[in-house]
């Protein structure tokens, strides 16, 4: 890949058939082993989270006093019915982790979608109009970046009772400024391009230029990289749950499972560590997929492929 980059960089535009950047990024992505490995992890874990809870007789919330503190199945004293062992109330940790994964995915994916849309709108407006609109929007963005998000999050979640919706909104709040900045900077560059000036001369409305011309050109490459933010948001969601201001028990989340297990750490270390390891593998899958997409995108944008 690197040895032939010089050669291809010299003759970038020889392709006759037009191919959208999105398709080129996709082709460059799925050639990477990293991507396949990450996708494999995700398919297995997310697949299990979607299917297993419907087919098991176990309940993620019902207590079994006789089955408390069972170690994971691969340790002496473990049972194959409880793959990752049971917690202080005799609940199956594997099932609870899977339900936690469902919740975490739903919350973080919606949060990323919201922050992307908000960031894109702010960035498009600021970059396209410039002037006073740009100044005001960007100062708000800077201010948002300067507040430690976690302080804001804790404050908001003590005002509103934490629910999946409020947690999602708080996560979205943490991420939109990054998107606003990036979208603004690419929009600034795009505004100078001939097709935009041409459209202006032809009398196209600003909304039309922004949504139909600039957005389709600048947003997809940014959207691809948003995959990485899903992982960041899952960690953030888990942190909120861990401090006790995430989605509330009895709904299992990675955060509250790990926080609950903390007091039994010495005698039953698996309660906190196993769900954490489960979360780690999921995040690894997302990050491998995300970083291979990012790498492919950079190669495409720099004209190396």
């Amino acid at each position, binding site marked *: 890949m690197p040895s032939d980059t010089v050669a291809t960089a010299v003759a970038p535009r020889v392709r006759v058939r037009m191919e959208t950047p999105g398709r080129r990024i996709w082709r460059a992505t799925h050639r990477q082993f990293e991507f396949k490995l990450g996708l494999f992890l995700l398919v297995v874990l997310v697949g299990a989270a979607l299917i297993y809870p419907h087919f098991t007789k176990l309940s993620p919330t019902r207590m079994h006093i006789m089955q408390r503190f069972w170690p994971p199945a691969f340790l002496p004293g473990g049972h194959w019915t409880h793959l990752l062992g049971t917690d202080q109330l005799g609940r199956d940790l594997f099932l609870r982790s899977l339900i936690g994964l469902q919740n975490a995915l739903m919350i973080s994916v919606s949060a990323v979608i919201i922050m992307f849309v908000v960031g894109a709108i702010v960035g498009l407006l600021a970059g396209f109009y410039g002037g006073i609109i740009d100044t005001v929007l960007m100062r708000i963005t800077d201010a948002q970046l300067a*507040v*430690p998000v976690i302080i*804001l999050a804790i404050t908001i979640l003590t005002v509103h009772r934490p629910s999946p919706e409020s947690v999602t909104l708080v996560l979205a709040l943490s991420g939109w400024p990054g998107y606003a900045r990036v979208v603004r900077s690419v929009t600034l560059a795009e505004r100078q391009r001939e097709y935009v000036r041409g459209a202006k001369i032809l009398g196209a409305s600003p909304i039309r230029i922004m949504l139909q011309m600039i957005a389709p050109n600048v947003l997809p490459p940014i959207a691809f990289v948003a995959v990485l933010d899903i992982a960041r948001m899952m960690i953030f969601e888990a942190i909120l749950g*861990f*401090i006790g201001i995430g989605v509330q028990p009895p709904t299992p989340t*990675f955060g509250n499972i790990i926080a609950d297990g903390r007091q039994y750490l010495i005698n039953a270390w698996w309660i*906190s560590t196993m769900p954490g390891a489960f979360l780690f593998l999921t995040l690894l899958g997302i990050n*491998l997929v995300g970083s291979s997409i990012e790498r492919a995108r950079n190669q495409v944008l720099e004209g190396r492929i």
Partner: protein
Amino acid sequence: MAFLATFLIRRLAQGVLIVLIVSFAIFTALRLVPGDPARLILGPMASDAVVEQTAREMGLRDPIPVQYVHWLGQVLQGNLGTSFIKAKSGGEAAGGRDTSALGDKATVVALLEQSLPMTLQLAALALVFAFLISVPIGIVAGMNSGGWFDRFAVYLGSAFVSIPNFWLAIVLALVVTAELQWIPSIGYQGFSYTILPAFVIAIEMSPIFMRSLTSSIASAKQRNFVALADVRGLSKRRIFLRHILRNAAVPVLNIFGVQIGAMLGGVLIVEYIFNYPGIGLLTVQAVLERDFPVIQGVALISACIFVVINILVDLISTKIDPRLDF
């Protein structure tokens, strides 16, 4: 020098604006939290009339903008207010809740003076660790871009970002402190208590530095002047230091500036888990106890730190790369 002065003035003015917006937003958000601070201070035994009177004395019944301007005026005189909860001795004022006098409570400035150095120490050590991990790996991976080490670094980076920081903190506290008893953590009784928390923060930060260093070195290496420097007969060492590393330093610095906010989040949760007496622990406790003056103080300080570091980053960037103009 004139350039420097205008740059500083412009950035400082912007910075002040940002800090004002941030502090007003936090101030307003806190006033919307249910639960009356006066009731919190006086405890459940006080009568409603006394609570109401104290609230009026403290200005808690004024309109929010009035309270904000009042608070801002005090801040400009170096007075960040007095904690609702924390006693001067450092502990919680458990027995002192029935007195209406605030005299025995710690000032926010004093609390910040106690905890800020601790957090700075933690952050500095975390940065040292993060650079020790990421600089060698980033440089080798960038110089051998596409080679096996580069691929290894990609996997390592992905693994590091995937580790939930609070989970790593728990595991390290369990294994290194409780089981093996190698390095103490939990609480603070000496410098060695900083090592594990700093390590956790470093693991969280290093992938970002690693990745940006790798990619910026790889792209600096392919520039024409590097190939030309080889032809000019410059030593490998000189090419690396003056041509490659110097060009790669600016993007990494910028990433660092942006990361400060995120790093603060990491510091907060890690301090909370390790019970490390810094700004993070102070903040979490203050929020859980609705200790408004402390939260406001922390938000103000952290916004200021964010602004100052970003100005410094831009200044150093122009020093390294004079073509940059702000």
